[in-house]
């Protein structure tokens, strides 16, 4: 054991003696580890962020689009009830849409997305209500002519004035505005929108049958089973024409996204690993120079009783020290760098213990792998020849 500590002491002493050379060699490893760490934490951070965004956009729902056919153009209010009772279904939210010209406050805007929604629409949404109220189930039942308006559209029609209580006209129908939604809300995105009760839209505005529906799940783990039930129901509703509808599972999309990000992560880390490889070659180069410079010392040590493995150990430890030092500094700089870059890209890097452990493991392995060849060369030197090289 004392021999081991002695070897560590010798290795460190020799590294400290050649400070500049050691620093430059360490730099190679630092750059390699730094790029691996920063890429891994950034990509992981981005993956987590995209995942969160997707989940908030509805990781817990099946999205159904109906195209219909000659016999049946879409879903009726009655059809919806069949989905609500399926196993693992929390609730459904269906809507009808159309693009219309909307006028009010003496102004008029065309191409407004008018969306007929139900009371469940806002249960799975993060849209922001700026003023007034949402649409109630009672609005659907009695097919009232009330509407929610997006803040952008409100400004175009009513200027700075609050639109609550005022009316807008579209398709010859007058709607009383009861709520204002922030135009920056996630589901708005399309620009100017007017939200009205679905039943009113279907009938009074002539939007017809339901073309889009979200089925919200209680448990996303069994989403594919529920998807099966939903598809069976649609199959029956559309008279066994399976081209009349499609079911999209957000969870599958999220899994796919995760896989893509994972592959990208591997690719980037693979590229970064090349720089670590270059760092390793730097170590090997330095160690080979060091061995040939110290041939005489190695010969002397062997003459005085050093066994090949103690020489081997001395040089391997030197190279592992360099590499580990690079690993430590590279990890610190890599994390710092990823937070700096993350601040610019607005991505919060995800630093896990695993990433740090991986970087350390990598750097130790690099030191070992690239140190072993020079160290073996040193340990196999013939002491007679080595002593003569002066």
């Amino acid at each position, binding site marked *: 054991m*004392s*021999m081991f500590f*002695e070897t560590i002491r010798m290795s460190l*002493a020799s590294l400290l*003696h050649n400070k500049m050379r050691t620093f430059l060699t360490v730099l190679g490893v630092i750059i390699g580890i730094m790029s691996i760490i920063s890429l891994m934490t950034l990509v992981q951070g981005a993956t987590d962020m995209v995942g969160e965004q997707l989940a908030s956009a509805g990781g817990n729902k099946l999205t159904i689009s109906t195209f219909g056919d000659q016999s049946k153009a879409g879903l009726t209010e009655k059809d919806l009830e069949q989905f609500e009772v399926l196993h693992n279904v929390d609730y459904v939210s269906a809507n009808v849409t159309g693009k219309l010209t909307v006028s009010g406050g003496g102004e008029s805007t065309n191409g407004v997305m008018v969306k007929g929604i139900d009371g469940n629409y806002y249960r799975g949404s993060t849209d922001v209500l700026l003023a007034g109220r949402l649409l109630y189930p009672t609005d659907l039942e009695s097919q009232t002519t009330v509407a929610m308006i997006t803040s952008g559209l409100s400004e175009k029609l009513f200027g700075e004035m609050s639109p609550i209580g005022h009316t807008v006209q579209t398709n010859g129908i007058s709607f009383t505005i009861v709520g204002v939604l922030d135009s920056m809300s996630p589901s708005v995105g399309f620009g100017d929108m007017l939200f009205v009760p679905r039943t009113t839209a279907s009938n009074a505005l002539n939007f017809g049958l339901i073309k889009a529906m979200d089925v919200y799940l209680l448990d996303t783990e069994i989403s594919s089973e529920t998807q099966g039930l939903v598809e069976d129901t649609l199959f029956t509703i559309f008279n066994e024409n399976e081209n009349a509808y499609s079911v999209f599972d957000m969870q599958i999309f999220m899994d796919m996204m995760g896989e893509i990000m994972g592959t990208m992560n591997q690719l980037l880390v693979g590229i970064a690993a090349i720089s670590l490889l270059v760092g390793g070659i730097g170590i090997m180069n330095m160690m080979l120079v060091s061995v040939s410079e110290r041939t*005489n*010392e190695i010969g*002397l*040590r*062997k*003459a*005085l*009783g*050093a*066994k*090949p*493995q*103690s020489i081997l150990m001395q040089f391997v430890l030197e190279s592992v020290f360099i590499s580990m030092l690079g690993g430590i500094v590279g990890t610190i700089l890599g994390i710092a760098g990823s937070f700096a870059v993350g601040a610019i890209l607005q991505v919060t890097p995800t630093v896990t213990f695993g990433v740090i452990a991986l970087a350390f493991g990598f750097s130790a392995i690099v030191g070992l792998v690239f140190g072993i060849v020079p160290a073996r060369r040193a340990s196999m030197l013939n*002491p*007679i020849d080595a*002593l003569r090289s*002066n």
Partner: protein
Amino acid sequence: MSESLLTMTNVNKQYIMGDVVFQALTDINFSVEKGEFVSILGPSGSGKSTLMNILGCLDIASSGDYELTGSNIKAMTENQLADIRNKKIGFVFQNFQLLKKQTALDNVMLPLIYSGVSLAKRRERARTMLIEVGLEDKIMSRPNQLSGGQQQRVSIARALVTNPDIILADEPTGALDQKTGAQIMDLFQQLNKEGKTVIMITHDKKIALKASRVMHIVDGRMQKYVEGVE
């Protein structure tokens, strides 16, 4: 002769260089007893360095037997040879072979690292040895702060520190001026008087004659030294 420290019986050494076989040593037969001071005298190219390497267990004879304190050197692994060099042999080299970046104390401690002696004991024994060779005020000096004679004393202290069976000195005065060389020879004689077995290899007859027995090596063959020539 039964108390022999080392015995060489019909030792031969050949080097093969391509298809040329070079006979470096031929039928070397000799023994050294405990407490002797033997010098091996020979001109360059006589095979004395080869003999020194075999004596020092740095090399192995091509044929014949070399017994060192009961061990047959032929049948040994590299690790066993390293152990023998560490424990039984103290080397003194012509060009001192000191580690330039380390102090006299560190240099003397070096062989003890490979004996597995603890740091405290290594320090103590190395210090004692340096005092014994007259360098008590140079213990923390580095080789470049020491004269040639002082450096050779450090190297002798290093050879003594493991308390080996033999001190093996290869041209120990070769890099020194005459006066300093004579002082180093005095030190060897003194060590021999204290009971150390010393084998010295040299091309210098005057130096060789300081030993109690002189062997002459010419063209790889060992001969009794004959008084009178040169």
